[in-house]
């Protein structure tokens, strides 16, 4: 588990859990509720470059496709193969087994651009913002 309280958040509902220069990234519980049944995720390849707030993966539900934006810039160090095989993990355990990828951060200072848990909780209470 990447405890929600210890994560940082984007305005597009991705979380990042930073530890030792690497950020684990996934979608929030709020996001998985909005997207509903996820049937496919297209994860980035290992070694791919990411840029903060730019698309690095795609999420498909039964009736929609959504972008997954990288919460930090860097290089993809790992992608969650278990999620590729069973995309419903992102619904069942968005902060656990449903993580998307691990990004080796090129600029850890970018974490300061993200919301903390309390700010994100406030953010999702404002319906017009997202």
């Amino acid at each position, binding site marked *: 588990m990447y405890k929600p309280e210890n994560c940082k958040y984007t305005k597009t509902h991705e979380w990042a859990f930073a530890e030792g220069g690497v950020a684990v990234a996934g979608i929030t519980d709020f996001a998985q509720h909005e997207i509903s049944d996820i*049937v*496919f995720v*297209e994860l980035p*390849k290992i070694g791919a470059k990411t840029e903060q707030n730019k698309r690095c993966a*795609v999420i*498909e*539900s*039964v*009736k*929609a*496709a959504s*972008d997954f934006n990288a919460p930090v810039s860097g290089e993809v160090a790992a992608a969650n193969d278990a999620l590729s095989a069973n995309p419903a993990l992102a619904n069942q355990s968005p902060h656990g087994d449903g993580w998307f990828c691990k990004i080796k951060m090129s600029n850890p200072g970018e974490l300061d651009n993200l919301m903390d848990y309390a700010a994100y909780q406030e953010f999702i209470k404002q319906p017009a913002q997202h």
Partner: protein
Amino acid sequence: MYTPHTDRDREEMLKAIGVSSFEELLRQIPQELRKSKFNLPPALTEPELAAHAAELAAKNSRLLNFAGGGAYEHYIPAAVRALVSRGEFVTAYTPYQAEASQGTLQAIYEYQSTVCALFEMDASNASLYDGATALAEAVNAALRITGKTKVVLPQALNPQYKRTLQTYFAPNSAVSFAEVSCKTGVQDVAALETAAQDAACVVLANPNYFGCLEDADEVARIAKAAGALLVAAVNPASLGAVRAPGGYNADIAVAEGQPLGLALGYGGPYLGMFACKKEHLRHIPGRICGITKDLDGKRAFVLTLQAREQHIRREKAASNICSNEALCALTATVYCALLGPAGMRELAELNLEAAHSAADKIAALKGFKIKFGKPYFNEFVVECPGDAAKLRDALLQDGILAGIPLGDMDPSLKNCLLVCATETRTPADIDALVAALRKHANA
């Protein structure tokens, strides 16, 4: 013109929208825009029109046809036309509504299953516009899948397919094409080895535009070793005798489906066949029909995996193709089902026989030779004693279309004629061609 509305209908409609006359309805349109005269001849009665159409049809010349080059004259069994012209199938558009279109959707599902069986591939879409579009979409998928930008083509790729690729990718300056020489009739292996480095895909045309069958295993091996996908463009009528793309590990297989029961029709409507390995499922362009169960647990057919498509994924869609060639796909399905595996084999053998008999007889003519010593299916290149275009024109006067001169494609092939003989060409037809070639070559 017949319209179903009576004067009373019109009056009611005008009244409902609150205008007094048709003229008043058009009041917003400036007068100068409404003065158009169409300068058309007076309307004809039905018998007059039928006579006029027959007169126009009589202007067509009925040539004895030895031209192929991507569109092939095959016999179309009467059952094919009888079945596909049923009113239930003649629908104007892709059927989205599963609750109203089970028959059409099932036909598309059967088509996809047929394509997978024929190509030995895992997944097929509901069809595309034509063979050239199917190849361009395959290349597009390969670019997306690999994230690379180089595309390797054989020199002996149908020139129309090359032009379609240009149309698709010329606006994207990042995409580059490398062409592999086919001087011996097939791809130069050493040149392919170099070109394939860093390529998104290697395109294998099998048979290629010269009619030659490539060493598919070798091309596949080179593509895979370079980390490129293998895109195979095949002739579906050959697959009863020629190995299927799945057999040599193609990632994506495409074809022009016209040989499967579709009329030549001056170039269309044709059928783009597209199939791939399961791992590339999410990159398939266009519609896919799937099988599922309805609320009562009964078998049902629906369009599926639509999150790839542009009405959902917008500019990030796998393709901007959003329709298919349903009636042509149905025709191909009926044709394949009618022939069955044994019939497809027999079809391929009859084509091989006709073409090889024609080639042998032409090669025996003084001054003519078969250009390439490679295996071929129903088409081959003949080197003539002089300009092939002139010879073709001379034979037209005898009612024979001898083939396609290749000088436009490659000036060094000015004396070369691409000749095709399908199962529709009898020994007497072939003898007529040979006699005419002898006569005009010596003239």
